[in-house]
Each structure stands twice: as C-alpha cells, then as structure tokens.
C-alpha cells in the first residue's frame, strides 16, 4: 500500500523544506508548503479510510524497512492501519489540516512564521507515526516526537520567560510519564519477547503474565505513561500552563490530538488491560477524579484559554473513565468528537483573542454576541457539543460513556454519579464562560477588529459541522474490542433521563449565578478560595513543596558536589605532581648531563658490586 507508506512523510518533507529555507520564504510560500503537505496526508487518509471501510480486511499493513534487532525479534519500521488507527488517522489529518489552515492566517505577520509551520508539520508527522505504528517501539518514537514538538511550540514565543518556563514544565512533567511507559515496554518485551502489536494481541504468553502478576505492573506502568501524556491526575499540572503557546497549538496539540495519545495507548493495549480488572478500575478512578477536579478548577478561571484547558483535562477524564469501565468504543468515540468540538472551541477562542488584540481575560470581554455574531454562534455550537446537548456529537459520545458506567464490572454506580456530577460542572463552567464573554456590556478597553480573513473563518465552519454531525459517524470497532463486557439490560430506567437532563440543570444554575443582568457589576473575585481553585486546587503548590523545594534544598546542600570532590581530588593530585616534576625541568642542559653521568656511575657501581659479590 504505497499510499499508506508515504502518508506520514509528506509533513516531514515539508518540515525539512521549511526549516532549511525558513528565512527565504514569504508568508504565501511557507503556508502553501505546510498546509498542502498536511492536506496531502489528509487526502491519502481519506482515500485509505474509504478503501478500508469497503474492503473486507481488518488490517492494512505496510513494511518499510527493518529498524534494528532486539535479540531475535526484529523491530520494523512498519505501518499498520486497523479500525482504531483509522479513527485516529482521520482525526489527526482532518482536524490537523483545518487547524493548519487556521494557523496560517492566525500567525500571519509573525517574524518566525515558517519556523512555526515547520514545527506544526513535524508534529503531524510524529503523531501519524504514533497512531500508525505497527510496534510499540515505533509508537514510542512518535510519542517522544510529539512531546518534543509540544515543547517547541509551547515555547514558541520564547522571548517571554514565562513561556519558556511553561514549555520546560510540560516537557519535564510528561517525561515522568514517559519513563514509566518506557519501563513498561522493557518489562513487556522481557515477558512476551516481541513488541509488535499483532504479537501482543495474539500472544500465548498473556495468560502467564496474569499468573505471575506481571500484567498488573505492565498495565500500571502504561497507565503512568498515558497519565503523563493526557494530563490526568497526578501529572496534570503541565496542561494549563501549556496554554502559553499560540492558540492553534493549543487547539492542535493540547486539545485534539497529542493529549489523547494516552487514551489511544490504553485502547490499543485493550486486551492487556482486560486481563487486569484492578488496573481498569484504577484508570476509571483516575478518570473520575480528574474530570471532577478539572471541572471545579475550570469554574474559577478568568483566562478563556485556561477554562478550555481544564475542560480538556476533564473531557479526557471522561475518556479514561470510559476505558476503565471497559467501554472502549465509547471512549474512542468521545476522543473523536472531543477533537472536533474542542478544536472548534479553541479556534473560535483564538479568533476572539485576535479580535480583542490578545486579550484573554474573560472579565475584560462581555457583550461580544452583538459585536462578533458569527464567531459567537460558532462558539455556542462548540459549547453545546461540550456539555452534550442533544443533537450534537458530544451528546452521542458522552451519553455512550455514561450509559455503560452503571453496570460495568470495573466501574459502577459511584463512577456513574461522578460522571453525572462532572457533566453538571461542565455545563456550569461552560455557560459561565459564555455569559461572561458574550452577554452583558463590553468591559474591555481595546477596540474590536473583526477577523475577516476567509482562511480564519472557513475552518471554523467546517469544524462546527463536524461538532454537530460528528456523532453520525458510526465507528465499527467490534473487530478490536470485546463488545460483551458490559450488560446494560439491568439498569434502572431513570438513568438515561437524568443523564440527558443534567446539562440543562447546569445551564440554569449558571444562569442564576453568572448571568450579567442589567445593573449587576461583574468583577473578578480575588478571594483566597477563588485563587486556590484558580491555581489548579493547589497541586502546583503541593508538587513545589514535595518535589521542587526538597530538590532545590538538596542541590543547595550539595552545592560543592560530593561526587565532584573525588574528581577534583584526582585533578589536584595531577596538578601537584605536575608542579613537583616541573621544578626538575631546569632547562640547564649541563646539569642534566651531570645527573646522567651520576646515574651511570651509580649503576656501574651497583653492577660491579654484584659481579664482584658473585665472584667472591
């Protein structure tokens, strides 16, 4: 399959081109190169997915070359398309293409425009490797590649120290998860002897893994990796800070694609996870806690992008909850619809931010419905999908997750209630954002310039269509996932009505608390509680207290570096002896000669003494 083989390399080629020619390209040239390369990938992806759906094959594989050998097992540079990676492929190239179009218009005029587009292309390329990888080593390559691009793009405006700091934080925190993932890979290789996905899915050794408890540890380590990448508890602190990057980056990397890599990993390894119900429950607990805590944190944010960041964390929490409950199809479905509506939300937020000359504080907005009607209505569509109003794509996927929680063996009623409360919080913070931004009086001082570039508006409309109708895409993942994990026939009948009604209750609550009635003054709350919630419920402070401060303290104690003392001792020794020996180098040739003669005389005397001793 030539099309599949070339697919990840178009953006890579464009990346190389842009990086090498970066200074000599005009805006038009650079955007044509970068956008068309992703467009080409998207077209190939569409062609492949179409063929895949009408053909009977459940897997399309293409072998490119052998990368290296691990013992007897070859690690190949090979790509594999099955129904799960087809979903991801569609999301990454489709949404990625739309965001590239938007980004070309959004970043127009930036002096490092080609560098920006080059990084975006590199990201798409790495993400495609991640989702199409035939083995976990190649997947890990893509995994690290997207991490690198995330770092580069968060710190794109590195002239601001805060941005560089956020980039570093994102890189270091996800690295913790990556380390877990890598150790998990080593363990899995030791136990199974191969890291090819087909081998892992069909290996006979898996039963043994359960017996010696290895499956538990491997899955737990994989969860560690997924948690880092997908910004779940306890490694979630990097995502809100990652909003320091340009808005298209937040949409592409920190909402639609990269942060869902953890979900993809768990869904990909589903048969391993099904062997270990304990880990599935842990995943469900992590998801439930994250969706609740992130939702609460979103309630107190004043920066519109940070609200969306916390909402992303919370929605990925839903996906994790779904996976943990065994509802793999629903989790992956939510991944897809979330990519649509969250990309839409981020891009419309970006358009608003552009219109207000980089004002991100919602308390400086207000009344935008009248001033920017088109963008506002697009934003409404995104919000409607986010809080799962009936008729949107978010409704289909989120209800699918919630419906399976109640009678799942690895989750249960508690998790169902967590999801419902989460949905309530989601709709409260979403409508708080809507009321603050679009209703009441305009509270800012900057003049509003309507973004008119058609490249900015067109992707928004397409994404809005996807956010509304994305639920109609039926995912047939039955070839991959066991369907009869959950039996939903014994559930009480009121569950579904509660789930459908929850978002509306949330809207009412938000209306009562936050709606800017005439005469009501809107001020940013500065109370201690608000600030505590705003800073992510103290996790940053906790980690700073538990990890950063002790580390700094240790490094302060060890300022003179104990280990270095040893090395310094060696160098001191060498220097001292050098000085001593240097003193003998008088450069007086006659003195050397005299000493030489003395030495010869002493040697002769010794020899003579020995020979005369032997003779006697």
């Amino acid at each position, binding site marked *: 399959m030539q099309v599949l083989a070339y697919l990840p390399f178009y953006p890579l080629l464009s990346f190389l081109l842009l990086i090498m020619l970066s200074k000599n390209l005009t805006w038009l040239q650079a955007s044509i190169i970068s956008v068309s390369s992703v467009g080409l990938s998207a077209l190939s992806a569409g062609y492949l997915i179409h063929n895949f759906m009408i053909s009977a094959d459940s897997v399309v594989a293409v072998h490119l070359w052998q990368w290296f050998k691990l013992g007897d097992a070859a690690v190949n540079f090979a790509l594999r398309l099955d129904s799960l990676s087809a979903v991801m492929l569609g999301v990454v190239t489709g949404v990625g293409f739309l965001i590239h179009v938007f980004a070309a218009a959004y970043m127009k005029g930036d002096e490092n425009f080609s560098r920006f587009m080059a990084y975006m292309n590199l990201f798409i390329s790495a993400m495609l490797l991640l989702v199409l990888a035939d083995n976990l080593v190649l997947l890990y390559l893509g995994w690290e590649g997207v991490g690198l691009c995330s770092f580069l793009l968060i710190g794109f405006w590195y002239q601001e120290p805060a941005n560089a700091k956020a980039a570093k934080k994102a890189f270091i925190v996800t690295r913790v998860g990556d380390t877990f993932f890598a150790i998990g890979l080593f363990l899995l290789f030791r136990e199974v002897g191969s890291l090819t996905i087909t081998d892992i899915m069909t290996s006979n050794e898996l039963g043994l893994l359960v017996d010696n408890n290895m499956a538990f540890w491997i899955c737990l380590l994989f969860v560690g990796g997924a948690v880092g990448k997908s910004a779940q508890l306890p490694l979630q602190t990097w995502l809100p800070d990652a909003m320091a990057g340009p808005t298209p980056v937040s949409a592409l990397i920190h909402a639609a694609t990269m942060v869902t890599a953890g979900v993809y990993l768990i869904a990909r390894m589903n048969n391993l996870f099904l062997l270990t119900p304990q880990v599935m429950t842990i995943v469900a607990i992590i998801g439930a806690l994250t969706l609740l805590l992130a939702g609460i944190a979103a309630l107190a944010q004043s920066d519109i992008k940070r609200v969306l960041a916390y909402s992303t964390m919370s929605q990925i929490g839903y996906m994790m909850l779904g996976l943990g409950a065994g509802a793999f199809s629903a989790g992956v479905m939510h991944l897809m619809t979330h990519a649509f509506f969250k990309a839409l939300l981020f891009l419309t937020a970006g358009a608003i931010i552009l219109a207000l000359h980089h004002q991100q504080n919602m308390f400086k907005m207000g009344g935008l419905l009248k001033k920017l009607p088109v963008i506002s209505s697009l934003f409404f569509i995104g919000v409607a999908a986010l809080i799962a109003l009936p008729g949107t794509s978010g409704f289909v996927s989120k209800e699918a997750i919630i419906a399976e929680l109640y009678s799942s063996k690895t989750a249960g009623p508690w998790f169902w209630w967590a999801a419902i409360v989460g949905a309530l919080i989601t709709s409260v913070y979403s409508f708080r954002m809507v009321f603050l931004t679009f209703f009441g009086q305009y509270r800012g001082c900057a003049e509003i310039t309507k973004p008119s570039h058609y490249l900015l508006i067109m992707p928004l409309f397409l994404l809005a269509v996807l956010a509304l109708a994305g639920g109609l895409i039926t995912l047939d993942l039955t070839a991959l996932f066991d369907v009869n994990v959950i039996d939903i026939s014994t559930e009480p009948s009121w569950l579904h009505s509660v789930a459908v009604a929850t978002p509306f209750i949330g809207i009412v609550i938000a209306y009562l608390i936050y709606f800017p009635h005439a005469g009501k003054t809107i001020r940013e709350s500065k109370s201690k509680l608000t600030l505590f919630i705003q800073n992510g419920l103290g996790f940053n402070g906790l980690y700073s207290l538990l990890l950063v401060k002790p580390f700094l303290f240790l490094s302060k104690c060890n300022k003179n570096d104990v280990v270095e003392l040893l090395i310094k001792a060696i160098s001191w020794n060498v220097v001292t002896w050098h000085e001593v020996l240097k003193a003998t180098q008088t*450069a007086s040739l*006659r003195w050397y*000669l005299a000493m030489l003669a003395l030495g010869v005389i002493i040697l002769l005397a010794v020899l003579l003494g020995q020979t005369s001793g032997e003779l006697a």
Partner: protein
Amino acid sequence: MSQIPLNHVFIFAIILFVIGFIGVIARRNTLFMLMSLEVMLNAVGLAFIGAGSAWVEADGQVMFILILTLAAAEVAVGLALLIRLQQQRQCLDIDALNELRE
C-alpha cells in the same frame, strides 16, 4: 715490535672520555661542547681499536669506521644548527638557550 698493553689503551681511552665529558658539562659555549663530544667519540673509537687488535678481530675497526661516519654526520648537523643559532640569536651560550623548557 712491542705491543702496547690493552690496559694502557683502556686507561688512555677512559682519560680521553672523562676529559671530553668534563668539557661537555663545564663549557657553556655550544661550539666547544660539540668539540668535546668529538673527543668522547674518539675515546670510544680508541677503545674499539685497542680491543680489536688485542683479540685480532676486524670487528673493532669496523665499529670505528661506523663511529667515524656517525661523528661526521653529527658534526654536520650540529654545525648547521650552530650557524643558524648564531645568525638568529648572536649567542651560543647553552644556558641562555633554554626556551624549549615551557
């Protein structure tokens, strides 16, 4: 024809060698050091000749011819160096020419 005893030859060679050596370490002028070196080489050559004639072997004389060749080559190189030194530094004092030290 009375033969000179081998001991005498050796004692003479040693005396020559020591004179040469003292010349090398006591002189500061490099030209004289070179000349003293020649004296030392000749002392060794004399010892070879004496030993060769005492044991009626040709090896001693062969060795001497080798030493002679070596001395000629060494003097050629040494004198060339001395001429360059004289031209560049106007000085042949071995104690003053110690810049290679560092």
